[in-house]
């Protein structure tokens, strides 16, 4: 884990809500794995007080000599609004890399389905690159409310993934939920499949229903409000199934953000 003051290399606005911030840091980039995240301080002042968690989106520079990394951010509140105004060469305090990474499929022959919604696309360019480099066949299912809410399609395409789009309003790709083309794809698929998902909880739950019904391994990346990102505040917990049939809280920032979907309890148990 590194505590660093990093320099913003560039800020690229994708649309009115979303933007990509590139940071210079070979050191952090060399350590970062797909699925992990960083905690970014958006101000040196006391308001907003807490750092913001952000997934690694892409690593920059040659594979053997990384020069930096990027994050994909959706403007949703005060902290991300401040970030949207960042200028190149600004310095920000960062803790990275944090949390668990996506694990490769247990079977080297598996094809991979990456299912994402909205800004949940953020960790997938990095994951897709790794999976494709390891020889997996990768299909990315990208969902969003409108065409404007589909993120990383070009990046994933460029990396060599097959890209399938779905929008609630039909403005791009399939008109409907992203799980519909996923289901269709799995119906046709031959051979092993590993599923990865990140996005709104209802989407991840629906993906999980599909994966469970077919007995497919499924890894999800979760989110929760975080105060520390390093495991000390216990703010980011989710209920997780225990081997003995009981359940316990685990920390998304340490035991996650990537979990085996099998272990998750989507409906919070009564205390």
């Amino acid at each position: 884990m590194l505590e660093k003051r990093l320099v913003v290399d560039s800020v690229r606005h994708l649309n009115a809500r979303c933007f990509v911030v590139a940071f210079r840091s070979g050191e952090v980039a060399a350590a970062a794995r797909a699925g992990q995240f960083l905690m970014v301080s958006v101000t040196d002042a006391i308001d907003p007080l807490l750092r913001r968690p952000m997934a690694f989106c892409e690593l920059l520079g040659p594979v053997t000599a990384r020069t930096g990394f990027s994050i994909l951010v959706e403007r949703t509140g005060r902290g991300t609004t401040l970030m949207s105004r960042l200028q190149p060469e600004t310095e920000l305090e960062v803790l990275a890399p944090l949390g668990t990474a996506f694990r490769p499929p247990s079977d080297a022959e598996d094809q991979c389905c990456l299912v994402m919604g909205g800004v949940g696309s953020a960790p997938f360019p990095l994951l897709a690159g790794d999976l494709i480099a390891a020889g997996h066949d990768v299909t990315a299912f990208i969902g969003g409310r409108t065409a404007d809410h589909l993120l990383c399609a070009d990046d994933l395409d460029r990396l060599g993934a097959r890209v399938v789009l779905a929008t609630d309003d039909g403005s791009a790709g399939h008109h409907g939920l992203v799980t519909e083309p996923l289901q269709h794809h799995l119906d046709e698929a031959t051979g092993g499949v590993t599923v990865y998902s990140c996005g709104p909880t209802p989407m991840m739950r629906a993906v999980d229903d599909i994966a469970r019904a077919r007995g497919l391994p499924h890894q999800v990346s979760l989110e929760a409000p975080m105060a520390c990102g390093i495991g000390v505040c216990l703010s980011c917990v989710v209920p997780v199934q225990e081997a003995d049939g009981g359940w316990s809280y685990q920390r998304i920032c340490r035991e996650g953000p990537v979990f085996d979907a099998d272990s998750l309890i989507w409906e919070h148990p009564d205390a």
Partner: protein
Amino acid sequence: MPEPTRNPDLTVKVGSLALSNPVMLASGTVGYGDEISKFVSLDKLGGIVVKGLSLEPVRGNRPRRIAETPGGMLNSIGLQNIGVEAFVEEKLPKLRQYDTCVVANIWGTTVDDYAGVAARLDREEGVHALELNVSCPNIKEGGISFGTDARQLHRVTSAARAATSKPLWVKLAPGVTDIGLLARAAEEAGADALSAINTIRGMMVDVARREPVLSTVFGGYSGPGLLPVALYLLFEVKRATPLPLIGIGGINELDHVLQFMTIGASAVQVGTANFYNPGFTGKMVDELIEWCAQHDVDSIEELVGSLQLPAGF
């Protein structure tokens, strides 16, 4: 030419307990020391107060557990902890290896709970003091917090006192009409030192959803916005009792550490700052050394309680 700077003496005493310096980690903000030690060497600090321990493990509250506020935050973790037994077996051995004071923060929902945890830790080497978190409801007495009623505070402190010969600190709760009364109750019941303060109650609303942000409706307010309240309450506690004091609440820069000490804190605990700046306490120790050197302070204890008051106080 200035004199060659001597090494300032940062040691402070909290009653019979000597700390290598006044900077401690506050309970509930650094777990049991594992993760934070990647950012600050525990050997460098005066002490660590571990996450509040109860007799049995506790799961804590349902999320959402935090909310940000202007210049601060709310939490409703619900005292999630691994229980005193697991602490002793899994966490304490590692903590013993550090050259720092380890303080066990303990709590319960009955007087017997407190006494039980205190008794269990009394036998354990490497626990240098116990700190009672009394901001908990007394379930046998209608759920009123131990920390808001002088009689109950007296009982729970006495029970813990009887159960341990280790230094006993009582961590006072704000949100009471007269904190001095509570401070005296703890003193009379045998506390060796008082920590002030725990979080104060706060609330935030998610207007779009017409719901409280926290699952528990309200939670404990901490962080920079708490500072002036914490300083004031420490001042009131100081006026009420001669016990050694530990200042807590909103520390965000060295000046805040110094303010608590000037009022009368022998040591301080840093909480929320560990979240947004995990290396913060190490920096405080470095800056404290520098400050002493620059201000010709040979021993930081000179500062403790050096506040000069206008006539009438």
